[in-house]
């Protein structure tokens, strides 16, 4: 049998939040995700952009079956997430890392936290230890295994949270703004760990972020606005549309912005410059 290529398939997925009034009657229906279709292939690194309230977190929670679609279908590794009996398999295949590092660490010792997922899955004790060790190694946190999470920096805590997901041997990891509460060094540590998982362990990564610099490592970008996917493409394709992005309350990396400004001023630079090296190179060619 040929192995399936797609990891996640969304078909016209929609989700309504329903607000109730005091008497329990339906007061308001908010369509947080509005008919979204996309596909993520195995081994992809997908970035999802969108301003606060654009529906990207709601979408992310579907991939882990924390929410199920009000309309449409979502398949994770071939499983329909709406099907109750797939629930635990879906959660094991698609791990999730959240924004606040403090609110997702359960254990009082780093290694115990990483073991929490495998414990829940009923993994035999000996194998839990192996998984904990390899996961902490994968995020470069092995030497902190006996530490208390409270004494770690934000970036370290977030890497522990990632290790906790990796120990469940997922096929895919969804990270919901994992760097939003970190300082620049913490952000770098986390992104480095995520990239290593994607490249070395070949885990599919879905990264939700507000930091444009983190997006350039992705091979695919989805831009969300008002519950819809409004742009899809490679980082280069997305970032060559500076004005469209701005209209969605987003930004572009600094190098891209400078290149775009220079181009507006008449310099003959190519579209979608992503890094400062690319910009310098392009300028040298003109000079």
């Amino acid at each position, binding site marked *: 049998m040929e192995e399936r290529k797609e990891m996640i398939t969304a078909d016209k997925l929609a989700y309504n939040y329903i607000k109730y009034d005091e008497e329990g009657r339906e007061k308001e229906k908010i369509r947080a995700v509005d008919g979204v279709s996309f596909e993520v292939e195995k081994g992809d690194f997908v970035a999802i952009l969108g301003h606060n309230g654009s529906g990207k977190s709601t979408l992310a929670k579907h991939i882990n079956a924390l929410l199920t679609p009000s309309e449409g279908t979502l398949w994770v590794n071939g499983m329909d997430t709406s099907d109750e009996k797939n629930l635990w398999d879906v959660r094991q295949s698609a791990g999730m890392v959240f924004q606040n590092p403090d609110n997702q660490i359960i254990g009082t010792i780093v290694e115990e936290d990483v073991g929490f997922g495998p414990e829940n899955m009923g993994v035999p004790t000996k194998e839990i230890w192996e998984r904990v060790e390899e996961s902490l190694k994968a995020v470069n946190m092995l030497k902190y295994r006996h530490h208390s999470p409270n004494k770690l920096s934000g970036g370290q805590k977030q890497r522990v949270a990632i290790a906790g997901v990796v120990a469940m041997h997922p096929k895919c990891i969804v990270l919901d703004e994992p760097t939003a509460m970190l300082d620049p060094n913490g952000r770098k540590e986390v992104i480095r760990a995520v990239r290593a998982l994607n490249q070395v362990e070949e885990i599919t990564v879905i990264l939700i972020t507000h930091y444009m610099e983190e997006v350039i490592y992705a091979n695919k970008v989805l831009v969300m606005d008002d519950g819809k996917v409004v742009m899809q493409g490679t980082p280069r394709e997305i970032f060559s549309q500076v004005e469209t992005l701005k209209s969605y309350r987003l930004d572009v*990396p600094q190098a891209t912005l400078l290149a775009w400004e220079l181009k507006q001023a008449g310099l003959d630079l190519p579209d979608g410059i992503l890094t400062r090296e690319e910009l310098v190179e392009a300028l040298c060619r003109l000079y």
Partner: protein
Amino acid sequence: MSIVLENVCYTYSPGTAYEIHALKNINLEIREGQFIGLIGHTGSGKSTLVQHLNGLVKATSGHIYFNGEDIYAQNYDMRRLRGKVGLVFQYPEHQLFEVDVLSDVCFGPKNQGLSREEAEKRAREALRMVGISEEYEKQSPFDLSGGQKRRVAIAGVLAMEPEVLILDEPTAGLDPKGRDEILDQISLLHKERGITVILVSHSMEDVAKYVERIIVMNQGEVMYDDVPREVFRHYKELERVGLAAPQVTYIMHTLKEKGFDVDEDATTIEEAKKTILEAFRKKGSTT
């Protein structure tokens, strides 16, 4: 009108094994009307420093003078000082507690002893300053969006009509547009009202764009204190202590090395654009 710090030292748990020298002999003058950026990595002492400026933390040794008066003198009115030196903490929306937006913003002015009418007048003014319109006044602060909550919380401090406004990472966790909006509003306040602003930030790009003076903290000491272009000239030293310069600085330095006739101390997109175009023009006129 200014804040002067003289030989300020602060030590956590002095005399124990856990002794930490958070501030070491700080000498600074915060002059009226300045827009200052305070940078430093996590744990560099910058948060401790700002908490000294409104008397929340008392220095272990040294003196602080506000408008010439020693704030550690007997009978010095600390509560009045806190009205004059407004401090907005990180994630200030976590301190909201009242039933509606207007009452929450009134909390500060009422603590200053103002009448209900006077407090409300100031609260309304403060809310307009941060761009929250009248329709939100009677809403629960908890029903607002993340960015709106943040602004209401900032208004809560502005309503006390401080002469000095200190903001500890006011843009953390916001989307790019939200970040720009808050910083633009603060910048406007600075220009129109002449308020002294101290912005604690991790974003070198933001600091370069908005402030006129940068104070760099490292291991409890002031490492640099100068205008942005001078400070970022030391980008290699900044990297050594876990900081960085704006992206633009790196681009300019590389261009200079490659033989471009540019001003390598440009720190913002606008400056960079100007000097690069200038270089092309000069080059064009000679060849």
